């Protein structure tokens, strides 16, 4: 059977993994509206089930961020905050960041990181730790 360019079944799903004290939520490259809608439910459900300090939303594979997607991300981050956790958005691609800015979306006060590694380090910590005072 001839397969299409992307294996839809695999590419379309959100994965939620618990890494130590953090929930790692990975978005597929081009989620449709029902999948984006599921982001909120899945995340809040996982927040409820596990004891975690925060959530890293991995957008490394995401190719576009339209107003609906951005709104869902911002809302989810707010809800996570209400549940006592912090959200860090990781790995947004340059093309996606530029387009989202020009479109005019807002991600609120959500913190961001260059990649998942850095994001995991940041959860629960201030972005730029205060320098040690010199003696």
């Amino acid at each position, binding site marked *: 059977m001839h397969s299409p360019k992307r294996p839809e079944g695999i590419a379309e799903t959100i994965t939620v993994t618990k890494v130590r004290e953090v929930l790692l939520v990975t978005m597929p490259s081009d989620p449709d509206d029902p999948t984006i809608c599921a982001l909120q439910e899945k995340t809040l459900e996982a927040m409820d089930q596990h004891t975690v300090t925060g959530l890293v939303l991995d957008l490394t594979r995401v190719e576009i961020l339209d107003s609906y997607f951005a709104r869902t991300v911002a809302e989810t981050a707010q809800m996570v905050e209400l549940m006592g956790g912090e959200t860090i958005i990781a790995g947004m691609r340059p*093309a996606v960041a530029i387009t989202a800015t020009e479109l005019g979306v807002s991600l609120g006060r959500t913190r961001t990181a260059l990649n998942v590694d850095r994001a995991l380090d940041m959860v629960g910590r201030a972005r730029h730790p205060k320098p040690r005072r010199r003696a």
Partner: protein
Amino acid sequence: MTLQECGEIEINVEHDIAIARRAVRDIAAELGFGVTETARIVTAASELGRNVHKYAGGGVMRWRALNKNERNGLELSFEDHGPGIADVDEAMREGHTTGGGLGMGLPGAKRLMDEMEINSAPGTGTTVIVRKWRR
């Protein structure tokens, strides 16, 4: 070019927005648009496709490869037979929404594309045409 010059995709259910988006991404890439330009076009298509689904219950997206004065481009036309827009200028205003959105779809799509035209009358439906030229 192996690509055909024009085509259309029906937008009926929510998932069709994602299908239209993917088609636009492949066409834009085939026409030689760069990664960021492609992201702009796909994002605009996502906004306009969602409006068709949300406000008119469905419609069609037509696309056409353009060639004028040695310049290549892509034209997307979103057509529906929904309620139409009574005041187009008002709908284009940042933040204007009747659907509980952020009212950034239309003005955002205009910023992301090079040209945009809206033809709409209450009761007859709406056609939004956008164009992007290669640099």
